[in-house]
């Protein structure tokens, strides 16, 4: 079992940031945990789900982040410390409830963890949720190292109980998915009895009904601001705000989160510890004005180093103007004012260059001759490695089918994309099939809109794809909309039996819970039928039949068709490591460039399990990579690729 659960107090463990957050929650006596998977957040809930029975927790993968936050809030209202976890885009989904939640407030500690992805390493955006803390007026905390990730996660519950409001804990990829030494504390058993009190009046924070209600808006909003004020006072003396450096630095650096590790590294690289002061903020909303004023006055130059948008930069500048003449003249640097870039993830080199520029020092340089030669060799020796579907991925087969059906149909039909591994349908590995891609469920919503444009002369067939987890998360309302409004569209549900992109978490269509216990599965096909759609089901690996089904559906007019292309993910627990077929290439039959196929299998289909041998001019199977799905045998026009069933 994981050290997150078994590690003793005082022990030093190497923990990934997400595991440190999970351990902090256990040390705080968390009882209820809910959220929706999304990189880089997913390990927090999974780690707690794996030890749920050992610590008496309730842990669920919710249908979406809004429901996840509501489930966690119910725990808080019933006097149990509760945790909601999501990635940055999930906070947008949860935000409607979050506005009401923070207006009324909470009972037992409620921490909302958001793990964000500066640079979009595993995201399609650089969303920065810190603005919600300001916009919706609740406290925000950000750990600056791995020990703090654990300690501040635990403290977040305490803080939430002091101010009776939700506390946002923001992490970033380089905190969540990085690892470091953490000294463990004691795991708290937490209360076991849940009870929801509601007999008091509406303003009775601990005993009344938990409502936001017209007529109560002003007193509740005033109470919310008092809570924020209380947080501000606590933050003035928080041990998570630290200063290292001289009393009168040439440059004051204010930083938070993983960026504080880059700042330390850059100061070390440039040997400027005697000249630069480092104010690391762990509490980033509301800002502690006295603490900031004290430090701002020590230097005429301030550089703000943060991951994401210029949130601290803007708010610290606003605070400085409020201080008036006593604050003196100041020169601010950061992402907005330069020299740090306004977008993308930071790193120690960007920070070191910025520090050097402001201090008038030469930037740390590498051996230019070496770097030049290494760059040259990288061009020839490290061929571009684009993202692609895994060998044996059903999405490659599904997109092959959709792409070829739309070509045969020949009416410039197109597919609206959605969020999951199958978003890769935008690029070559999915044959550039997707022509739109936005938020969870948006493909179906957009198709619903395109499907109503026929009165404006629109005559292109409209399709949307969506995964099984995405269907429950956000596509259902869009599908209802399309059916009710009689949009002309086909929804292709690429059902791979789990939330594959993020590590195969279960969803409402699965028959297990987060911890592996049994749950009733909700049947996607029956839901779609009950909604009023015409439903067909096919296996993308049975290519001939599936293609015919798609062409038949494209021929239909008016109304919504749903095609479920069902085949489990190649990495699913049931399939992983098991080979369905032994694949082989008959060298005599493989005509490669001589064949009319023009190397269909390697040039177009492009499965990583195939190798193109340019010398022999033949296709080969890579026996290390191939998982034996058998699909390439179906697409080879000369029948050179054969499949032989593996005896089970």
């Amino acid at each position, binding site marked *: 079992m994981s050290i997150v659960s078994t590690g003793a107090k005082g022990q*030093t*463990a*190497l923990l*990934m940031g997400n595991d440190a957050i999970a351990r902090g929650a256990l040390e705080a006596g968390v009882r209820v945990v809910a959220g929706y998977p999304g*990189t880089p957040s997913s390990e927090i809930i999974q780690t707690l789900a794996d030890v749920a029975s050992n610590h008496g927790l309730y842990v669920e993968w919710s249908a979406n982040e809004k429901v996840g936050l509501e489930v966690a809030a119910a725990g808080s209202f019933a006097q149990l410390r509760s945790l909601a976890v999501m990635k940055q885009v999930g906070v947008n989904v949860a935000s409607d409830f979050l506005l009401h939640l923070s207006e009324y407030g909470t009972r037992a500690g409620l921490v909302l963890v958001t793990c964000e992805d500066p640079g979009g*390493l*595993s995201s399609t955006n650089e969303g920065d949720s810190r603005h919600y803390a300001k916009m919706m007026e609740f406290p925000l905390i950000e750990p600056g*190292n*791995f020990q703090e990730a654990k300690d501040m996660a635990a403290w977040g519950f305490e803080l939430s109980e002091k101010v009776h409001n939700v506390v946002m804990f923001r992490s970033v990829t*380089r905190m969540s*998915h*990085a*690892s*470091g*030494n953490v000294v463990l504390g004691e795991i708290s058993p937490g209360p076991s009895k849940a009870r929801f009190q509601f007999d008091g009046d509406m303003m009775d924070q601990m005993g009344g009904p938990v409502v936001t209600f017209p007529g109560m808006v002003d007193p509740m909003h005033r109470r919310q601001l008092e809570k924020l004020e209380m947080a501000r006072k606590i933050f003035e003396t928080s041990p998570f705000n630290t200063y290292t450096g001289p009393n009168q630095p040439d440059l004051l650096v204010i930083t938070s989160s*993983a960026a504080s*590790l*880059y700042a*330390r*590294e850059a100061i070390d690289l440039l040997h400027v510890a005697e000249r630069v002061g480092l104010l690391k903020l762990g509490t980033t909303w509301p800002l502690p004005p006295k603490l900031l004023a004290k430090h701002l006055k020590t230097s005429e130059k301030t550089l703000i180093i943060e991951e994401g948008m210029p949130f601290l930069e803007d708010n610290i500048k606003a605070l400085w103007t409020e201080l008036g003449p006593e604050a003196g003249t100041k020169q601010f640097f950061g992402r907005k004012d330069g020299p740090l870039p306004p977008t993308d993830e930071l*790193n*120690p*080199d960007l920070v*070191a260059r910025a520090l050097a520029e402001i201090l008038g020092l030469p930037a740390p340089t*590498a*051996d230019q001759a*070496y*770097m030049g*030669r*290494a*760059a040259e*060799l*990288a061009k*020839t*020796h*490290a*061929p*571009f*490695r*684009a*993202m*692609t*579907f*895994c060998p044996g991925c059903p999405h490659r087969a599904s997109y092959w089918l959709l792409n070829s059906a739309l070509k045969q149909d020949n009416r410039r039909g197109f597919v609206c994309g959605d969020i999951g*591994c199958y978003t*890769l349908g935008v690029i*070559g*590995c999915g044959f550039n099939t997707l022509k739109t891609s936005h938020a969870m469920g948006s493909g179906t919503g957009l198709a619903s809109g395109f499907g109503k444009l026929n009165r404006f002369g629109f005559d292109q067939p409209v399709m949307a794809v969506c995964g099984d987890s995405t269907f429950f998360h956000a596509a259902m309302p869009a599908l209802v909309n399309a059916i009710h409004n009689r949009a002309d569209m086909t929804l292709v549900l690429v059902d791979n039996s789990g939330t594959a992109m*993020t590590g195969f978490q279960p969803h409402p269509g699965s028959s297990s819970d987060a911890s592996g216990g049994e749950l009733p599965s909700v049947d996607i096909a029956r839901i779609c039928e009950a909604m009023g759609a015409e439903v067909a089901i096919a296996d993308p690996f049975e290519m001939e039949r599936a293609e015919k089904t798609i062409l038949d559906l494209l021929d239909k007019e008016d109304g919504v068709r749903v095609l479920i292309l069902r085949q489990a993910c190649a990495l699913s627990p049931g399939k992983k490591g098991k080979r369905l077929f032994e694949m082989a290439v008959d060298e005599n039959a493989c005509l490669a460039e001589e064949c009319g196929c023009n*190397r269909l299998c*390697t*040039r177009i289909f*492009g*499965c*990583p399990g195939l*190798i*193109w041998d*340019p010398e022999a001019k033949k296709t080969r199977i*890579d026996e*290390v990579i191939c998982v034996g799905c058998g699909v390439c045998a179906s697409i080879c026009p000369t029948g050179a690729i054969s499949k032989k069933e593996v005896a089970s």
Partner: protein
Amino acid sequence: MTAPQLPIDPYNVIITGVGGQGNVLASRLMGRMLVAQDYYVTIGETFGASQRGGSVMSHLRISTRSAWSPQIPHGRAHMVIAIEPSEAFRVLAVYGNAEIQVIWNTRPIHPVSVITGQAVYPSLEEIAQGLNELSAQNWPLEATSQAQTMGNPILGNIMMVGALSAVSDLPLGSDIFEETINEMMPPAKVPINLQAFSWGRAALT
């Protein structure tokens, strides 16, 4: 802290490869072996979307002093472990320097650009020549083919860690490996991992 001093502190290792080769396991394993000996270890990893057939990298910072940035500053890696050979060049172009050492697995995984014919994969001779030019020392290792004979190509990652234990000053001996692998793996998988580690260690001893 009682950890023995390091000749270079922080000592920076990059483990690189392609999603699915066991990069993350190798970095965690090394990290745990060193934390058990009271070192500070900071690991930065890329996974998620990049795992889908893309390049993956783990940065390890090993120190007696403190945690460091989970991203190594450019040009400042000391050791590269390339579980996929061409990936070594991608790493060296950003983090390399004339003093760097490289341990590399000889088994290529062709990227889609090579499978489709848009790009050409270098020959092993070209790779060896390039690495001779860009590193102070480098060691090729036929890890994947050896791992296949042991029944699972993924064991290549453990072999690479075994090889590192033979050529570096880091305290990554067989005893601490055995202790750590016992904590990380179910008992049934321990013997084959011990075998893989020993093969890698012996290969470069």
